[in-house]
């Protein structure tokens, strides 16, 4: 861990100003990811801008019926917020499936968007990693890749540059809900649809997202569509709690009066460098009733082009089965996070 300077501005403009003035400066919110990475010598910022005193701790209703989540609201306060639980239980469920109570009490909504991959090689400076050190190679590709990506790993060369996944649970639900990220930067404010916020590694694996230097996330907007009756977040992992997803599935369904699926959203976690969706697969469900064969077809289509790298190849079949199960559960309106784990186990 290197020495660094530190400041704690009180307003957004000052924070953006400070970050833009310094080279190698970073924002710090809950610190649950950044401090670990600094101690492991993976990140070495020269300056930290502590944003915890910015007025971004709000959860506000939007005039059109949506909800605005301040960047500094903790994951715990978000998950247990009355309006989130009532209107966006999918988000609540996804957040509570992640990390531990202690971590969720510290972790912020903004920080969660930016959390970096849990790839073992990324964390171990003794090994090659294109994300940590562009051009050094990808240790995971030829090494141990149980938790790695099966979708979206292509690069312009023949071999993928990076097969890391984005580890967040919250972001998978945000993707299913079509959330919008609000940012303030040196060039003013803008919004980024969650679909465009995270990116595939391509030839620039060091870039996790499309945020520009100096930009600060101020809030996350949830659209008016709630999906609070037929939804589920199914997370599969190597132990019942406190582990990152091998595969996770967020499903949000809108049914018509006849019980047919009017709209389906399916987002996958643990399979790619960003939460994964496939509109063509979702469209297969429109106007249909529950049907396991159809669900399997949807799953096949969602995993179209999936590629395993050895230790993670099992994820392809696991993801398909998880999709079928999650669709079953969401359609039935059962909110359990998978039969294998009772809700109270996860909390």
């Amino acid at each position, binding site marked *: *861990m*290197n*020495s660094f300077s530190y400041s704690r501005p009180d307003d957004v403009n000052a924070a953006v100003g400070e970050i833009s003035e310094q080279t190698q400066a970073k924002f710090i919110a809950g610190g649950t990811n950044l401090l670990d990475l600094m*101690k*492991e*010598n993976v990140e070495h910022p020269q300056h930290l801008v502590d944003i915890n005193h910015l007025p971004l701790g709000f959860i506000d209703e939007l005039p059109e019926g949506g909800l605005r989540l301040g960047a500094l609201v903790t994951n715990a306060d978000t998950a247990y917020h009355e309006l989130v639980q009532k209107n966006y239980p999918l988000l609540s469920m996804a957040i509570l499936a992640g990390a531990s109570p202690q971590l969720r009490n510290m972790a912020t909504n903004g920080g969660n968007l930016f959390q970096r991959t*849990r790839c*073992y*090689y990324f*964390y*171990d400076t*003794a*090994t090659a990693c294109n994300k940590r050190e562009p051009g050094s190679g990808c*240790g995971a590709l*030829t*090494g*141990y890749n*149980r*938790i790695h990506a099966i979708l979206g790993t292509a690069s312009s060369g023949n071999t993928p540059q990076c097969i890391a996944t984005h580890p967040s649970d919250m972001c998978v639900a945000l993707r299913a809900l079509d959330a919008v990220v609000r940012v303030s930067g040196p060039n003013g404010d803008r919004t980024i649809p969650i679909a465009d916020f995270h990116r595939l590694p391509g030839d620039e694996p060091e870039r996790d997202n499309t945020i520009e230097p100096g930009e600060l996330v101020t809030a996350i907007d949830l659209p008016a569509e709630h999906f609070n009756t037929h939804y589920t977040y199914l997370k*599969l992992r*190597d*132990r*019942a*709690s*406190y*582990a*990152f997803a*091998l595969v996770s599935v967020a499903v949000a369904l809108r049914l018509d009066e006849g019980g047919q699926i009017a709209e389906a959203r399916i987002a996958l976690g643990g399979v790619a460098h960003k939460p994964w969706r496939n509109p063509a697969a979702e469209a297969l469900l429109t106007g249909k009733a529950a049907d396991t064969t159809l669900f399997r077809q949807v799953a096949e289509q969602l995993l179209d082009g999936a590629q395993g790298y050895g230790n993670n190849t*099992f994820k392809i*079949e*696991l993801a398909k*089965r*998880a999709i*079928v*199960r999650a669709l079953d559960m969401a359609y039935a309106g059962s909110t359990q996070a*998978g*039969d*294998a*784990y009772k809700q109270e*186990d*996860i909390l």
Partner: protein
Amino acid sequence: MSNYIGKPLSRVDGVAKVTGKAKYAAEFDAPDLTYGYVVSSTITKGRITHIETSEALSLPGVLSVITHENRPKIAWLDMSYKDQDAPPGSPFRPLRDNKISYSGQPIALVVAETFELARYAASLIRVDYREAPHETNLDTNLHRARKPKSGLASLLKPPPPKPRGNFDEVYAASPAKVEGRYSHSPEHHNPMEMFASTVVYEKDGKLTIYDKTQGAQNSQLYVTQAFNMSFSDVRVISPFVGGAFGSGLRPQYQLFLAVMAARELKRSVRVTLTRQQMFTFGHRPATIQNIALGADSNGKINAIYHDAVGETSQFEDYTEIVPTWSPMIYPAENVTLDYKIVPLDVFTPLDMRAPGGVTGVPAIETAIDEMAYELGIDPLELRLINYSDRNMAEDKPFSSKELRECFRQGAERFGWAKRNPKPGSMRDGHNLIGWGMSTGMWEANQMPARAEAVLTVNGKLRVTSATADIGTGTYTIMTQIAADTLGMPMEDVLFKLGDSDMPLAPIEGGSWTAATVGSAVKVVCEELGRKLFKLAQKIPGSPLAKAKWDDVEFVDKHIRLKQNPAAAVSLQQAVDQNGGAAVWQKSTSLPAMMKQKNYSRAAHSAVFVEVMVDEDLGTIRVTRAVSAIAGGKILNPKTARSQIIGGMVWGISKALEEESVMDHTIGRFMNHSLAEYHVPVNADIHDLDVIFVEEHDDIVNPLGVKGLGEIGIVGMPAAIANAVFHATGKRIRELPITLDKIL
């Protein structure tokens, strides 16, 4: 009289632990303390060609960077580096030369005025290597398997006995046969507390060392030999250990480095390892086993073949007892066993909770389950058919073996009789439910040990022995034994351990501490009692004046006549008779070899487990487990139960979650953090039930105890694997059983 022994008492050190008063090795302070940070090799095999330390050294506050190039002279002979648990071979010597023998090897120590500075400076050190090809994969190196060298370690871990009968012939002719290959990945102990040493440099150059260890005297021995110091100049103190599970049976490299730096700088030094560095020394070795069993149609097992190949380092021959468990449990007449090792470019493996036992027993106990299905006999019934009161590996009777009672009580508590043997016959929604069982076994050993007891002038008892308490409850049970032996309340008894100045005790391992140190405590208190009795008799008009030793008992802080409790002298009166001085006794307890040698001595268990397996997703949950234990006399059912529960949790871990994953391309363990090295969390643990079966044994040791540190884990993995088979019809012989193996 026993007021305390056998009672479920809370830990005497519990309050100190939960209030933070209990201090661990890295928490002791010293004036002018400096901090060391270890630099670890990034390659697995080869040579350091250049190590650049100038940038690190240029930082103000960095005191020294010690490497193989500038280290002070250290002992030359291998002998000088042998600790009490060293296997045959040439022990690893930190900073010996430029040779790299495994990934993560310590190659430099940075010492600075603060920990943060040392850590930062360490990141500035540049190392050039000349790499050599490495081999870390046991599976692809089986052709290099060889017999281990024998040495002192072979006394405690003998090679398997010679073949008996004729396995090939009898197996070929057996109507029922099973055959399988069983394996598990390496595992690291990963106690909560990182390895750490705080070396206090005293004015006269003497060292007081706070070390994380399972044997303060083992660390003392190591330091005196490696640095050519006298015993009186090195004192090692280790009152509390934040878990060790065997990892503290050998001094770890931070001790060596901290001592070297302290002597070089003539200042106190603390070195603490990081979690990642906790993966750079001993571990449970990956092991591959083959088993073949032949039985007659009644279920009598007549032929056993069991071989095992474990990994070791290139410098020491670490071994375990693995195949020998088969004939220890099952009395077949035709047995062939084999045990070999493969040297790889890894650190030497190290004993880890039930070493060898939780390797060999789960393999044979899975094979037995397979045989039960082959024969169509209930797995419990098959074990009863093959029950034996003799250990056929040594051809000796057991000193006691209440395993039959474990089977009976465990099965009843679990409801085993209701089991439908058909795989996949029970379900709840998407969950397949399976019931499995296993036998467990672990040796009951006793070592020589010494203890000291002092009754102070104000009538308090202090007992000491240089053993360790790694969280097992040693402090508590020793206090109970001492209090009961002298008829004192526990509040008046202080038991102390973990100091090399104290009377000799062996390293705290092998589940022998209760038996070993417990016996020493009992003996020293009895002998102190004799002294007190003599003093009591000298009191003018003593009611005990004419009494014989056998006529008296120690009750309620008094020595009194058994026949006439009113004829009593208080312990205080007895001490007062000592001319103003405390009464002091030091004693040795030796195992009764002549009595023990004709018997095989072991603890046993019967384990019953229920699992739920999601039929599509492969997730496994252990919903219920019952362990019935025959572990001799239970000194304290509360701490004993905690030991067994801990073992059961670890059994779940071993069966379903735990493995150190090596990237063989680079020869490095990669999941070296507690986020990715999975052990159970609360949500993984459900209903755990422990039964202690009555077992009387006066051969094992005077206390009749067998030790409970390891027996809790041994039976769990096979019971779980067998339950998974019962649920799914899938026989998984490779641990851990992660969900991908079920898909």
